[in-house]
């Protein structure tokens, strides 16, 4: 169905080809998975299938790509639109019309299908993807998971024979990802659609694949084969494969089910080991963090009434320090109560916080206390209020009622200059934080903003991200590098509270491992870290505590192991394989075996 013959792609202004030696065929009705570290040219391969490479992107394509017998050299993307449906990484960039229903119809209108056929297929697709209740909604108001489903639906309606998807599940919560993947599988099984997708989160997709195409490194020849074979030697692999490699299982299991059936021996070996996961954070080195002067209230315009002092009333501060556990004491899990007695104010205290967005209550009576040195993972569905909670902690939204205290200051009333020394947020799109056109300029600006010694930020960048030249443009960095640069910028002010919104989106496993290392070290230094994530493996690696949000309310709050064991959809693979033992990550298993 898709055939690459000796294909190499060279972009203008680059020394070597972006991809080379692509020579493979994907037969009709297969689900093929394209894997590899960041920056190996996965998007180029996907673009070559629908003809956007090279017709739209420029560059030189050598060799021949044929899709359903059509040569992409002689067929422009629009002439392939009836056989190939493509969804890019950002579904929002894909929408042409304004409402869901029109969006689903757009592709068919372009192809000139008859009105009654269009009507039937729109209804069919609305049901297939569970979008029926959203049909009249403007696409701009949809949540991330809904957008992804609409984008997939919009390319399904013309009934293409090939679907090309770039990271279809990376923005989705586990349940929504399962839903999208089961739809894809249904298409493959029932309609014989050929699917080619690239995805970093292998634990979600690898067991659906019939065939894996591995691009091991930039410019290296691809490896094509059955998933288990390719995974045995792949530089990127899901935790279940890592566990299999550790235990020496052959053939490698790709699913939790396969692994469980072979895990008896491993479980026995681990029987005596201490499987208490997620050790409580070590007594934090609070002294490592600077003592903060009292914040000044933000200067307001003269016509706006001042809304009150930035410093919380003395009583509140005491509440924040001494009885930090008291606010949410019952939920605190007892893991950190002892560590809080230090004199510095608690990094984050949220008390019965309500935030409204328009008429909707985005957060309802949320209470949360984060002591120094603790890492908290906020989890929950797309649109559950995770980002809103982070925004409230960073002072970007004003509470409708309730209180937020960040190191004793009320975030939305504190001057930004004082606030950066208390709390740092790395937003979902780290690029939003970067303005300068070189890394060096960005670092200099960060030092100025934070009032830090010149060179502080650059030293952090060198430590977190070795080998980045001063003159590099932030836009030219890879996703993971950009995230790390933004992290360094935020850390320049040494905020006791660090917030990260969906930090692993678009990161490969190597970048993720590095990020985990950095964050763990920061927690060890006494930083409190709160991350909103869909990535259960990341939460298992990193978090001491998981807070589960649903519809703006806290529905579970406790040590990571307890929460994820209680919620199968959010359990990491290792936990599922080794249950009833309570292991969370391969690292713990490896340490226990050593």
């Amino acid at each position: 169905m898709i055939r690459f013959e000796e294909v190499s792609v060279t972009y203008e202004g680059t020394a070597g080809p972006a991809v080379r030696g692509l020579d493979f065929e994907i037969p009709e009705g297969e689900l093929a998975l394209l894997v590899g570290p960041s920056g190996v040219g996965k998007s180029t391969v996907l673009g070559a299938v629908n003809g956007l490479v090279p017709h739209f992107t420029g560059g030189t394509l050598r060799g021949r790509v044929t899709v359903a017998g059509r040569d992409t050299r002689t067929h422009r993307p629009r002439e392939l639109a009836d056989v190939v449906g493509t969804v890019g990484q950002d579904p929002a960039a894909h929408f042409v019309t304004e409402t869901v229903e029109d969006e689903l119809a757009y592709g068919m209108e372009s192809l000139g299908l008859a009105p009654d056929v269009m009507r039937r297929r729109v209804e069919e697709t609305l049901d297939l993807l569970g979008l029926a209740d959203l049909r009249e909604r403007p696409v701009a108001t949809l949540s991330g998971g809904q957008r992804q489903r609409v984008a997939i639906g919009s390319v399904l309606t013309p009934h293409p024979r090939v679907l090309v998807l770039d990271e279809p599940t990376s923005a989705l919560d586990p349940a929504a990802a399962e839903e999208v993947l089961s739809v894809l599988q249904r298409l493959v099984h029932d309609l014989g659609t050929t699917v080619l997708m690239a995805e970093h989160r292998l634990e979600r997709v690898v067991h659906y694949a019939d065939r894996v195409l591995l691009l091991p490194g930039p410019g290296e020849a691809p490896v094509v084969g059955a998933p288990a074979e390719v995974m045995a030697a792949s530089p990127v692999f899901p935790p279940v494969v890592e566990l299999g490699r550790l235990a020496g299982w052959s053939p490698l299991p790709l699913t939790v089910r396969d692994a469980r059936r072979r895990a008896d021996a491993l479980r026995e070996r681990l029987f005596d080991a201490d499987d208490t996961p997620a050790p409580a954070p070590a007594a934090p080195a609070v002294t490592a963090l600077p003592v903060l002067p009292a914040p000044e209230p933000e200067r307001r315009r003269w016509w706006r009434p001042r809304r009150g002092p930035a410093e919380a009333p003395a009583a509140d501060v005491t509440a924040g320090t001494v009885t930090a556990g008291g606010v949410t004491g019952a939920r605190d899990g007892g893991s950190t109560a002892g560590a809080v007695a230090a004199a510095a104010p608690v990094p984050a205290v949220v008390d019965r916080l309500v935030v409204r967005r328009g008429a909707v209550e985005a957060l309802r009576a949320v209470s949360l206390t984060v002591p120094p040195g603790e890492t908290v993972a906020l989890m929950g569905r797309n649109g559950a209020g995770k980002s809103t909670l982070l925004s409230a902690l960073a002072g970007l939204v004003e509470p409708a009622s309730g209180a937020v205290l960040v190191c004793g200051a009320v975030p939305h009333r504190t001057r930004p200059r004082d606030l950066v020394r208390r709390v740092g947020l790395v937003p979902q799109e780290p690029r939003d934080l970067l303005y300068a056109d070189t890394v060096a300029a960005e670092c200099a600006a960060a030092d100025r903003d934070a009032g830090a010694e010149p060179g502080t930020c650059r030293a952090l960048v060198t430590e977190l991200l070795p080998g980045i030249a001063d003159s590099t443009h932030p836009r030219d960095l890879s996703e993971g590098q950009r995230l790390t640069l933004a992290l360094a910028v935020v850390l320049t002010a040494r905020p006791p509270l660090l917030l990260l919104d969906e930090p692993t989106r678009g990161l490969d496993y190597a970048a993720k491992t590095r990020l985990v290392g950095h964050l763990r070290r920061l927690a060890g230094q006494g930083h409190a870290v709160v991350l909103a994530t869909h990535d259960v493996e990341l939460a298992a690696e990193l978090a001491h505590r998981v807070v589960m949000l649903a519809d703006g309310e806290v529905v579970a709050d406790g040590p990571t192991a307890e929460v994820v064991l209680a919620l199968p959809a959010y359990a990491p693979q290792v936990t599922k394989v080794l249950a009833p033992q309570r292991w969370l990550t391969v690292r713990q298993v490896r340490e226990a075996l050593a």
Partner: protein
Amino acid sequence: MTVTTRTVSANRDAVRARASALHPGAWWVWALALGVAASRTRNPLLLALLIGVSAYVVMACRTDAPWARSYGAFVKLGLLVLGIRLVFSLVFGTAIPGTHLLFRLPEVPLPDWARGIRLGGPVYLEEVLFSLHDGLRLATLLVCMGAANALADPSRLLKALPAALYEVGVAVVVATTFAPHLIADVLRLRAARRLRGRPDRGVRGLLQVGLPVLEGALERSVALAAAMDARGYGRTAAVPPAVRRTTAALTLGGLLGIAAGSYGLLSAVGGVYGLPLLLAGTAAALAGMWLGGRRTPRTRYRPERWGPRAWLVAGSGVAVAVLTVVAAAYDPSALDPPVTPPAAPVLPLWPAAAVLLGLLPAFLAPHVPAPTGKDRRP
């Protein structure tokens, strides 16, 4: 899908909403007609009545869609225009002779060559009244435009374009969504400035996010173009060369005919051949457009139908316009009350009754239920 019954029942509202949605053209005709009526009167009471009629209909018929919120923006714009009109008349004065002196602004002496222009000086009640009435008329026109924008999705209106113009229409729609995206970007990036410890208010904050915002907008445009291309935008059907040539000849000839005909009509020499040439040119251009439409294989998904309701809505607007125009010819002083001497405006009974006809759509047009907000995944 497992809970089909619930999905279906929740769905019926949405289906009905779209099926019964009024043709956007009807709303535009109605609103433009109210605008025509507004342009024929300076009576503040009639103008206020027109604004009230449009506001009532908008409140009764608008949906929850983003474009439905534009009414408020247009009202504010109208107030701004009214204010500017008033300030200008205070500063520059008007040609209205006045006797009731209100107060005296300091006058700026101007050199001889600028004679006829006055800066400051005495302010009379008559000229303030006149500019208030005139400003209100402009504001009412704007508010009527706002009503059309709030009630009819502009992109749906473009769907009614002939096929040959469709692609231009899409380009226009994409361009109109550009501004809201840009504003969203500016807000997001200004919030991000706060995260960097810089003040998120003030002009400097706005300027510093300018470049990233434009970069982002450019990137999004490129991504959108790629997505549209991959989804078949601009596909052409194979048409025989003869048809293609005929299309080109008809369109080109038609446009030339229109140009020559209009010249003939406007200039003194060509009074004879002007009109026929203009008509023939228009006919040829229309035929060319119709033929050109065959090159695009596009079809339309659920186009709005122009039903009896659309006739009534459009008709109610047109009736208001026609009756006002007639009333203006019949009794000019009632619709354009003189300001010298100043007097309290009187509401002319029959024109006011005519304006009230514009309320008809509030009772005729289908009530559109708000799109269900909940994502109930089956």
